[in-house]
Each structure stands twice: as C-alpha cells, then as structure tokens.
C-alpha cells in the first residue's frame, strides 16, 4: 500500500521544525481558515463528524470531549496538550514535537478556538529535553508572527501557550495526574466525577488532548470531516502514526490509515522479524495492552478490532518478540515498570503492582510455585476496576494475558526451577 503521509509528510526534511519551512508549506493557513470560516460550535461539530478519536491510548471521541465543556462559565478554560509520552514502546509524539512542532501549535490554536479557550499548557515529559527546546523555539516564532499572543492573526482572540516540563513520572500521562502535576503537586490521579471538562485544572473546565490528536486538527480543518472520514475504518477514522520496536528488522514510525493488519505492519513495513527468526508474541499498542500470540497478528489495527480479541489499540506502538524471548522475563520487565511508576495512592495498585512484579520475578529466577501461577491471575482480577485510575488495569490485564497465553512457559519455569531461555 502506498499511503501518502499526512502528519509526517515533512519530517524527513532538515528544517521541518522551523517557521519558515512550515509557512512555505501552507503552514498556519488551516488555523486562519478555521477562525474565519467556522463558528466555535461548528468547529466542534466538524471534529465530531470526522470521527477523530484520541491518540493517547484511550481513543475517546475528540469532538465529544470538547462538547462536554460548559459553554457558559465564569471560570477560565484550559487546554492541556499531553506530551508526556511514556508508554513503553511509544515514541510517536516525540517525532511531531522534534520534527514538526508547528503542526502541533496549529492544532492547539484550532482546538482552543473551537472550545473558546485562551490558555494552553503543554505538559512535556522531562526527559524530552531537546524536544522542549525545539518546541519553545517554535512557540517563540509563533508569538513573533502573532500566531499566538494577544490578538492572533489580528482577530483580537488571545491565546497563550506555556510549556511545563514533567520530571520522570509515567503516571503523569494520565490526564488527571497530569493536572495534579501541573498544579504543582505529586502526580496523583483525581477522583472522577467531577470530570476535567467540568472541573479540571485549578478547578476550571479543561480539555486534555494528546499531541498526535492535536496534530490531526489542521488537516481536518483544511480538508473537512468528510475527507478525513474516508481514511481508516468506519469507527476508527484517520491516519495513525504506528510504531514498531523490539525484534523487528526496521524499527521506527510508520504513518498508515487505521485498520491495516498487524501482520502487514510487521512484515511489509517493518521488514519482518529480526534475523528472520520466528515471531512469538506482539504487544499491539504499548505495554499496557494484553499480549497477542503470533497466531493473532491478522487482527486489524483499529480501536474496535483489538478490543474484540481481548487487547486494545493503545498508542498503536507494537513491540515485537521473537522465539528467543522468555515471556516470563518479558512480563517481569513490564511489571517492574508498573511497580516503579505506580503513584501509590490507592491500595490495590500500590500493593498489587509491587506484589505481582515480585512473584513473576521469583518465577523467572526459579523460585516460583504452581500456586503462584493462579495467584497472578487472582491478584490481577482484584486490581482491575477497583482503582482511581487505570494504571492498575494496565498492569493487571497484560499480566493475565501473558499467563493465560503462555501458561506452559510459566509452568516450565516452575517445574525446572529456572528459566529455560537462560541455558
């Protein structure tokens, strides 16, 4: 398939991150058009019609989320751009930030205008030091041209963007934890209700959107919802920046319409498994997704198809594992991640993530028992749906899937009191 990239059209150019380059490639025309030709509510409807779903992992309808913000309120409203990309396997937002930041800024302008917001914070993970520099430079350039500031495009509309750097916490990618962090606190997710659209940042109506989601907006505003709907599938519209990492020949980012098969992504675009080994397992969209076996890769990469087979699209960043991979070790690695990143607020996650990691670690080291195998699933069952945010689910659901789909491997570790892959 030869798909013309939309979001990543210019990223290979050396100066793609500069204002001059962006302007000479129709940059900021879309935002101007949106402000001139659309009323804010119309813009929300257009985005709703386009079917754009959040690209941060949850896949919620972008337009619908915007629609929850009260039209009449005395409080200031905020847009928060979630650039805290920390989901293991995911590196697509980094590309946009480092190589096409103006596309992001233009998307922010459109989003803010649609919801009548005048203040935007970009929460970028602390480790993206270079990205923050590039982004700040791009924002400065936008201010210079009055695309941001007191009267953007001379319309009298005020819009300010502030970059707020995170400092090493995966949980701050969760929207309410992000808000806690923006407010100067520990990254604790907040209880919902109330929802951020009603009571978010500083208690005010807030929209939180992922970088890639926002990057789609200039294209929707310029070409229209109908054009956008033609890409992808009926319920998963639009282009997606897919990721490939792990045991694959050509790891990297591939922009393709939603709905392509995982097999195509790995073999046609990724070049197949590294060293032509056999495929063993694939995580379709970041470590929070339940794992798929090599027999399940004919699934379509869209929101609904993956849910139907018990996994999820997540960030659409696939991690490929060949037959040399020990699945127990892989699960241990993933669980160590969640144990390390759990904010510690609520009991099932705080205790469960650490406990799970220790049990699987024991199994990998050869000290596991048969009971441990069923214990993993029971602990996971006790975590899902019982917590303030879904980090617990992100640890528990994959854990269940590894044990279920690779049970014999776990059993073997217990029986031989060691890891068969370490021989």
């Amino acid at each position: 398939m030869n798909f013309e990239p939309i979001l990543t059209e210019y990223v290979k150019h050396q100066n793609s991150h500069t204002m001059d380059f962006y302007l000479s490639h129709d940059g900021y025309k879309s935002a101007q058009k949106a402000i001139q030709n659309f009323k804010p509510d119309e813009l929300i409807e257009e985005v709703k019609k386009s079917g754009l779903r959040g690209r941060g992992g949850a896949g919620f309808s972008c337009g619908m989320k915007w629609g929850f913000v009260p039209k009449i309120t005395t409080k200031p409203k905020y847009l928060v751009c979630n650039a805290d990309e920390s989901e293991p396997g995911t590196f697509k937002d980094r590309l946009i930030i480092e190589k096409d930041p103006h596309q992001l800024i233009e998307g922010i302008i459109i989003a803010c205008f649609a919801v009548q917001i005048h203040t935007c914070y970009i929460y970028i993970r602390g480790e993206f030091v270079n990205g923050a520099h590039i982004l700040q430079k791009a924002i400065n350039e936008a201010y210079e041209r009055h695309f941001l500031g007191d009267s953007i495009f001379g319309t009298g509309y005020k819009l300010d963007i502030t970059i707020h750097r995170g400092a090493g916490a995966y949980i701050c990618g969760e929207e309410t934890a992000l808000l806690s962090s923006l407010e100067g606190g520990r990254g604790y997710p907040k209880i919902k209700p109330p929802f951020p659209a009603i009571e978010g940042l500083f208690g005010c109506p807030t929209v939180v959107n992922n970088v890639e989601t926002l990057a789609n907006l200039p294209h929707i505003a310029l070409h229209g919802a109908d054009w956008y709907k033609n890409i992808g599938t009926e319920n998963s519209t639009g282009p997606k920046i897919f990721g490939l990492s792990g045991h694959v020949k050509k790891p990297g980012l591939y922009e393709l319409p939603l709905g392509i098969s995982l097999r195509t992504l790995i073999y046609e675009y990724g070049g197949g498994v590294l060293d032509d080994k056999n495929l063993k397992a694939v995580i379709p969209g970041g470590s929070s997704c339940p794992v798929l076996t090599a027999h399940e890769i004919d699934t379509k990469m869209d929101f609904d198809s993956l849910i139907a087979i018990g996994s999820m699209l997540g960030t659409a960043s696939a991690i490929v594992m060949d037959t040399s991979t020990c699945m127990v070790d892989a699960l241990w690695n993933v669980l160590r991640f969640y144990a390390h990143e759990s904010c510690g607020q609520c009991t099932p996650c705080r205790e469960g993530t650490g406990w799970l990691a220790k049990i699987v670690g024991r199994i990998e080291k050869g000290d596991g028992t048969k009971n441990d195998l069923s214990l993993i699933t029971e602990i996971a069952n006790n975590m899902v749906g019982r917590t303030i945010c879904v980090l617990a689910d992100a640890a528990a659901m994959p854990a269940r899937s590894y044990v279920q789909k690779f049970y014999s491997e776990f059993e073997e570790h217990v029986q031989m009191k060691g890891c068969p892959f370490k021989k």
Partner: protein
Amino acid sequence: MKFNDTVLKELETITSRYPKKEAALLPALYLLEREFGTISNEGMEYVASLLDISPAKVFGVFTFYTYYRRPGTGKYLIQLCSTLPCALRKSEFLFDHISKKLGIKNGETTPDKMFTLKKVECLGACDRAPFLQINEDDFEHMTPEKVNFLLDELRKKQ
C-alpha cells in the same frame, strides 16, 4: 542559598503564567537544579519560601519525580533505558558492560564522582534501542564499543 536577581526575575516570569504561584513548583525545582547542580534540602526550603508553600510539600513533590538530580550525582549522569523494547535489544547486556567498566552498580557513582549509572524506564525512543541519556544528551543504537568511546571522550575532557 539564594537565586540571583536574574534568576529571580526568571522565576517571576514563570509564576506569572500560572494563576497560582505553587503551580510553578516543578519549573522552580528545575531552576534550582540548573543553578546549583542538584536539589538539596536547603534548596527545597528556599524554593518553598519563594512559592509560599511548606518545605514538606516541596519534599513530597521532589521525591515523587525521578528525573530531578539528587545530591551526590556524578558529573555525568548515565541513564540507561531498561524497559521492554530496549531490553529486547539487549540493554541488560549493555548495562552489565557499563557497570563493569565503571566498577559501579545500579544507582551508584564512581569514586572520582565522574559518572553515576542509573537504570531508568522507557525514554520514548524504542526504535533506536538500546537508548541512553548522559545528562541532557540522547544516545541511540548504543553498543559496548560506542559506550567505551563515549566514556573515554568524557574522561578526556577533564
């Protein structure tokens, strides 16, 4: 321990972009790190006084976020990604190599205070595994040979 006037003005510009002063805590801690190298107890008390919040609040925030530099960190902080995608491309093997070469374990600093070695979680560059950061610089597709070269160059810079 105090910020000079320029830095204080910088902090003022930062706090002016938030409706509440205390929202500038994370940026303020980065300022502290930039100006004094690490974040010390004294520094946290100072930031607390600047933002009208309690030292306990600052300490709670500081211990939550792993990216801030703790006192005792060496001149070069080597942060090696150890999460699954990098692990699948032999990051553990690379870690063992660095650990052996520098003679330190995870989290430790070389006696000459030059290098601190830390395993960290996914740095968001999984297609360029094994990936690591040294201070604020990114290094991709790392191998033991590349690391040797890098560390030797850094030592030579002294």
